[in-house]
């Protein structure tokens, strides 16, 4: 196993799939000559050339649309949003074209495309640059939505996403690009739609994904120090959700906390809660709690940002609450 940064796991996934399949190409702002704003495509232009690694103008709707049109012709575009905040200007392309073309054409066309890039807050980027987009995309039938938190998952799931016939929204994390993790030398794929138990436990289930994962794991450590054994489930695929994995855990622990980077209202966190209370109502010994952003646009100032973000301590407080400690 090699220990590599998540950004390199992503780059390697792209490189392997491009080498394997001539139809795969990468486009986005600064992905080529600049090697990616966050260096997730380092060396790819040099290796694959301008035909397959395309720098785009700042025209997210335009290049998302070009990607969709190319995918309809059988190519397999990987479209990088420099950050998912900028996907807001391409929202209609994803909502009304990527997600609906297979349906709308009664299966005459498919749209095998991956939209990827960093999601949610980084560090002191202010309100327009700190948003979590999974609530907007996971809501939409016709899309697959993935969020990754380790190098291993990033590589294995991105390769699956590129090979998938469906449009995939693939959420990464600027804060975590430098985090290292073990990745096998040999090729592997991770199936879409499967959650992963990142830490087994028996007292309480913490459901999380993306940037929430390391926070949840730290919360679990803090809880362990107090004798509470938390199970941490990383959803990995947000749509379709691996509800079975969540329910299996909750039926065992009878308590759950959802911890994630993003605003509270609606979204993936609430979907998890709705599923648990609907399908494991009699197993629940406490309400499911959310630990996430406060319900405010992200402020720039460091002290304020830290107050808004979910922390291991806030995770611990929720774990204590649902286990009725203190």
């Amino acid at each position, binding site marked *: 196993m090699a220990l590599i940064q998540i950004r390199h796991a992503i780059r390697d996934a792209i490189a392997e799939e491009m080498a394997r399949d001539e139809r795969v*190409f990468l486009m986005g702002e600064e992905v080529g000559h600049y090697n990616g704003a966050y260096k997730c495509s380092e060396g790819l232009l040099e290796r694959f050339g301008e*035909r397959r690694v395309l720098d*785009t*103008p700042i*025209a997210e*709707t*335009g*290049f*998302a*649309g*070009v*990607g*969709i*049109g*190319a*995918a*309809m*012709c*059988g*190519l397999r575009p990987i479209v990088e949003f420099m950050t998912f905040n900028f996907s807001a200007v391409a929202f*209609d*392309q994803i909502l*009304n*074209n990527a997600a609906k073309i*297979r*349906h*709308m*054409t*009664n*299966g*005459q*066309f*498919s749209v095998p495309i991956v939209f990827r890039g960093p999601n949610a807050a980084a560090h002191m980027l202010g309100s327009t640059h700190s948003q979590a987009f999974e609530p907007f995309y996971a809501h939409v*039938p*016709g899309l*697959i939505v993935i969020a990754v938190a380790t190098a291993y998952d990033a590589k294995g799931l991105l390769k699956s996403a590129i090979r*998938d*016939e*469906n449009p995939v929204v693939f959420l990464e994390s600027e804060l975590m690009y430098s985090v290292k993790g073990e990745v096998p030398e040999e090729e592997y794929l991770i199936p*879409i739609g499967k959650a992963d138990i990142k830490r087994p436990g028996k007292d309480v289930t913490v459901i999380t994904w993306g940037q929430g994962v390391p926070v949840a794991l730290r919360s679990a450590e803090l809880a362990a120090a107090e004798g509470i054994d938390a199970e941490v489930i990383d959803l990995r695929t947000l749509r379709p959700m691996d509800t079975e994995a969540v329910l299996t855990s909750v039926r065992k622990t009878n308590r759950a906390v959802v911890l994630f980077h993003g605003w509270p209202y609606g979204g993936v966190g609430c979907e998890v809660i709705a599923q648990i209370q609907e399908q494991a109502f009699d197993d629940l010994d406490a309400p499911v709690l959310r630990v996430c952003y406060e319900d405010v646009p992200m402020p720039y100032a460091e002290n304020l940002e830290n107050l808004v973000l979910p922390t291991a301590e806030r995770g611990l407080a929720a774990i204590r609450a649902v286990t009725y400690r203190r």
Partner: protein
Amino acid sequence: MVLPCAGPMTSHASEPVAPGDDNAHFGSKEDNLRWYREMLRIRRFEESAAQAYTRGKISGFLHLYIGQEAIAVATKELLQPHDQVVAAYRTHGFAIAFGSAPGACMAELYGKATGLVGGIGGSMHFFDRKHQLWGGYAIVGNHVPVAAGHAFAAKYRGESGVTLCFLGDGAVAIGPTHEGWTLAGLWKLPIVYVVENNLYSMGTPLSRSIPVEDITLKAAGYNMARERFQVTSVAETKARLGEAMRLAREESRPVLVELITYRFRGHSMSDPGKYRDKDEVEAWRRSDPMERTMQALRRLHGISEEELEAIDEEVIAEMDEAVRFAEESPAPAPEARFHNILAES
């Protein structure tokens, strides 16, 4: 020094060309007979659809192509096997001209299982891949970059296909159109963007939707070649649009074509069209390409009233049959609503 802009805005009131008896605008007898029949097929299809709508058989939005048929007919004759046509929601005419079965088209409007897209899309979402009609997009302008993507794919693969992307005059103001044109120009994509300028977007005349009357004034800003004329005949449309396609195909560059045309019906079936007066519509009727082709058949080629009648009867029979097919077709199976949402891997 501030320069005045190159093309100052002139009066917006487009007047129909009165083409007189310019025989050069017409084709051979065979051409004109074929074109006439094809235009008539579209018109009769649309009229049948309108009737079915009035009888409550069709629902949702229904946008008719009556008046613009010559464009679809000319386009059909220019298509080569690897070309594709992408359009908005006023697309029945393309389907009929390109060879989609009128029955399947009508069944789509009826929301039947035998429809072009299984009754899933309706009037606004016509797709017939094998007949080169690649949509069928109902959000104004959002097909413009998608069409650039088809042209991109052809270039990526080194194929010779050209994409033809039709949009309305109303789609020129919206951002996705601009971005699609920008990428097409930047990457020198083999695509022809055809603005069907029928002078109105719903009830809004061009003078209230963009700041210039000549849409092709925009071409320079995208490094596109340009072409602009009023559609008065299939012959001329075919010749000039064909030249644009040649340029796109041979030089791999985008071309912007503005076709001035007119729809004789309201925007959709629910639009009484109060924003245009009778005189205006009448003036445009006099340059209706289908009507003019019929006159040419009479005057230039000596086709008799009876022969014209016979054509019409055949076409009407074809469309009656399409209606019957649609009526008798089954509704989609209930499970159909769960199909084609995701591909099964």
